[in-house]
Each structure stands twice: as structure tokens, then as C-alpha cells.
């Protein structure tokens, strides 16, 4: 073994150490940025966003301490979700096909009070309409004036994906719509109208509809 091998190995070790620190730091910074920018809302519920921010901060500390040394391959694997997350926007998240999951939704951890159950209307979500109809029945909601954002599913219905823990378990909630000519499926609309009962299900009789851009967090 020739003498220059040691410095070469030392430089290689130094490069590897620096790249592993960069991987951990990038992962931490990515989590912090996702939490701060609201991008994390595409993937997890709101109550979990501070947890992601804390995890990101912890990873930055680990990088600073040089406490984690993933190999180049491990680093590449760890960075894969970050790369994919950067490339996925609200429009792609909103287009998710969740045909294999449906139903089974109930009140979720971290949800606020449902205005419809308190006898009020106003801005609500499709999930709140669905849960209120399930708990007190569509008839009790008749005439309630609401405003709701949703994606057009068909000429006579809108839907919105709802997650329980994270977007991997998202499933659609659908609402039948009367009195409006909806735009093409996939477009987003803000509907203002009155709730009604239609064939045992709740429906919305629309007074006013307008197109809106895809929300920053399309999955509730």
C-alpha cells in the first residue's frame, strides 16, 4: 500500500461526511419549509404540521452535531420524498384518484365545532355537511344557507377529498347539487345556496356559483 492512500482516503471520508450532513440538513430544512409555507397541508392534517416543523428542527440539530451519517445510497433514499414533495403542487394533489377508498368517515381528531350542528350556516366544508346530515338528518338541515368550496365531480355533483391522518387515507365526500350548471369535472367552484333533502340524502340548491383556483390545501 502506497503512502498517498491515507490522505486520499481521508479526503474521501471528509467528502462523505459533508454530503451526509447535507442530506440530513436538507431533509430538516425541507420539513421546516413545508411546515412554514403551508405546503405540508397537502399531505398531513393541520394539527400535525407543528410536529413536522419540530422534526425538521431536530434534523437540523442532528446535521449540526454530525450525529447522523447516512451513506450516499441511504441519503439518496431519504431525499426521495423531499424531491417528490417539491414537484407535487395543489393541482396534482387535488387530482388524486382514491377510487379504492370510500365512506367510513367520521368526526376527526382536531376538528373544530360544526356550525351546522350549532344551528348555523355560512362557510362550511363538505365534510361538515356530510357529518351533520349523518347525525341529525338531512331534513333538519333544510333551508340552511351555506357557502362551500369543492371540486366538480359531475354536472350535478361536487366532491372533496378528506383525510383522517394523512393524504394516504384520503377519500371523497360527495354532495348533490341542484339549480346550477357546473363547469367541467376537475374544476373548482365556490357554491352559495341552501341545503335541501333529496331522496333521503342532503343536497345543495345553488343560488350563486363561481369558479375558484385550486385551494392551497385541496384535501381537507
Amino acid at each position, binding site marked *: 500500500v502506497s503512502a498517498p492512500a491515507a490522505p486520499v482516503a481521508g479526503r474521501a471520508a471528509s467528502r462523505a461526511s459533508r454530503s451526509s450532513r447535507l442530506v440530513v440538513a436538507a431533509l430538516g430544512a425541507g420539513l421546516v419549509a413545508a411546515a412554514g409555507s403551508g405546503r405540508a397541508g397537502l*399531505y398531513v392534517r393541520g394539527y400535525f404540521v407543528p410536529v413536522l416543523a419540530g422534526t425538521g428542527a431536530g434534523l437540523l440539530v442532528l446535521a449540526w452535531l454530525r450525529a447522523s451519517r447516512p451513506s450516499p445510497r441511504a441519503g439518496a433514499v431519504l431525499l426521495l420524498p423531499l424531491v417528490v414533495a417539491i414537484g407535487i403542487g395543489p393541482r396534482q394533489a387535488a*387530482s388524486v384518484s382514491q*377510487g379504492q377508498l370510500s365512506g367510513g368517515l367520521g368526526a376527526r381528531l382536531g376538528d373544530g365545532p360544526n356550525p351546522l350542528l350549532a344551528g348555523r350556516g355560512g362557510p362550511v366544508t363538505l365534510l361538515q355537511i356530510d357529518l351533520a346530515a349523518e347525525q341529525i338528518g338531512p331534513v333538519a338541515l333544510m333551508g340552511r344557507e351555506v357557502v362551500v368550496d369543492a371540486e366538480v365531480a359531475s354536472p350535478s355533483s361536487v366532491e372533496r377529498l378528506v383525510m383522517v391522518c394523512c393524504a394516504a387515507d384520503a377519500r371523497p365526500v360527495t354532495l348533490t347539487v341542484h339549480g346550477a350548471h357546473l363547469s367541467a369535472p376537475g374544476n373548482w367552484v365556490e357554491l352559495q345556496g341552501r341545503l335541501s333533502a333529496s331522496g333521503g340524502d342532503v343536497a345543495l340548491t345553488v343560488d350563486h356559483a363561481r369558479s375558484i383556483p385550486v385551494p392551497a390545501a385541496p384535501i381537507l
Partner: protein
Amino acid sequence: MTSLLEAPTEIQRTEPPSGRRADGRGAGRSGRPDWTLIGLAGVAAVLLIGPRLPKPVGPRMAAAAVSFVSLCAESLPFLLAGAAIAWLVRRHGAAPLVRAARRSPVLAMVMAPFMGAALPLCDCGVVPLARELRDAGVPGRVVTAFAAGAPLTNPIVIASTALAFGGSGIMVVGRIAVGVAVALVTALIGPPAPDAAACPVDHDHDGHDHSGDGLGAMVGAELAGTGPALVIGALVAGGLRALAPAGALAAVASQPLLAALAMMALAAVLSLCSQADAFVAASLPVGNLGRLAFLVTGPILSLRLGALYRRTFGTRWVLAYARTAALAIVVLSTAWITWGLQ
């Protein structure tokens, strides 16, 4: 896929700083391509371009990409929190447990699965501890009961299961009850962990880089060791979740026993961390029996664990353990869903 699943295990071994393996496989300053990195780049390209394609491909690819990122984001904090708590326990609470196991082996075997409540370690963290118990002279059946049951009584595992299933008693209590029962049955009628004399000499492949005793080193080792396995598991789960033919999944889901067997196989292949697998189970389009079988199998019988156990206890023990545990999981999960807490 096998090479990808194995990649995180390879990572833990001593590698040249360049990232190339000592056997010459790997990255390439030698001029040979690194197929792992090329594969990852391909996967990234597919997940970035696919969601932008028109229907019906685009929405399915979007589902795969969003599920993948979501699972990673939801699971990583639990993984690192588990490592941090494990550091606390290892530093302050391991010795009394070893003494108690030595005093009363029978009682220790019964109590061993519940040690997860006091030693909140994920399944991969349990392996080195099981080896330490064995080396300390704890009877083999106690070690088996501990290794199989402790990951399922881990408070973080219980909390994540409750979170994923919205506090559903049949799943949360079922995971603990069936998991503990499987651990005891496996310890009683399965193979006791072989004594230290049968242990392979090389222990430097247990999935963790024990480069220090500090909190940062423990959490950092977890990230470098188990983190990539979690990412690969999320990738497979996301892809399967979005891309598997709906008809085939529906056919499996409609037959509970077949669904249970399929989910056991899936849990074994995915090798997800027990602190995070509940979120995957909750998103699986199968019934409660399949989900429970998935939840119980992962921390007891995954491929990742099998590799660790093989190095620790030997191939013969792993095969006998897997046979006994798999049978127990099927029988006891079915019994719980049929007659258990409703």
C-alpha cells in the same frame, strides 16, 4: 424491488467513504453504474411526471406520489421520537429489567411482551436488546416472548395505532391483545432463542450504527438506519395503494381469510416501522381482519426483522419462529375479530 428493500440493510455495514461497497458493488468511480441511484432517479422521475399525465394514468400516479410523501411525513416523526425515548430508557432503565427476568423465568416470559410499555422500542430496536438479554443469561423463551411482543406494547405504537384508527377499540386493543397472545404462543410452542454459544460472531449488522451513546447519535442512527427502510416501505405502499388493480384488491377484501393472508405477506414485505405502520394499515382497502393481521405481523415477522433475527439467532430459529408466529397470527387474529371486543 428486492434490492431496494435490502438497500437500507446494506447501508449499515461498514462502507468505504466513497459509498462503494467493499465488494465492489455500488457507485461508480470504477465506471460501473450504481443501479440503486439510477433506480431512485427513475422512480423520482415517474412520480414527478406521472401526476401530470392525462386521465386515467395521471390521477393514479398522483395518488401514488401523494400517498408516498404523506406516509413518509406522517411516519418520520414517530420513528425519531421512538429513538429518542429508547435512548432515555436504555440509559436509565434497562438493568432492573434484566435482573427481574433472571429472578423468575416463567413470570418473566409472561411479562416479557409487556416490557414494551416500559421499554418503548420499535421492532428493530428490540433486536439488539433481545440479544443483550440472551447474552445476560435470560432464558431463550423469555427472549422470544420479549422480541415478539415488546414492539406491540410500545406506547408510541399504541398511540400511533389509536391515531390512525381514530381510537377504534377493536383495532387498538386487538393489536395489543393479539400481539401479546401471539408472542406467548410463539414463545411456548415455538423455538426458544438459542443461547449465546450459537450466536454468530459478527453483530455489526443489526440495522443501527452504534457510533455513540448520546441522544443525537441514537436518533441519527435511527434516521440513517431505519429511515431509508421507511421510505422504501412508503414507496411500495403508496404504489400498491394507488396502482394495484381495484378489482383484485376488492376480490381479496371480500374474502377475509384470504385478505388476512395477503396482508400478512404485505406486512412482511413492506417491513414498515411498527411506530408508523398503523397509518398504512388504516389506508388499506381491506376489512378489519386483514388490517389486524397486517398490524400484528409487521412488528413480529417482517423481512427486515427476519434478516436481523437470522444474524442474531440463526436461520433455523428464524424459520421455526416464522412458521409458529404466522400460524398464531392467523388463528388469533381471526378469533379476535370473530369473538373479541366489538
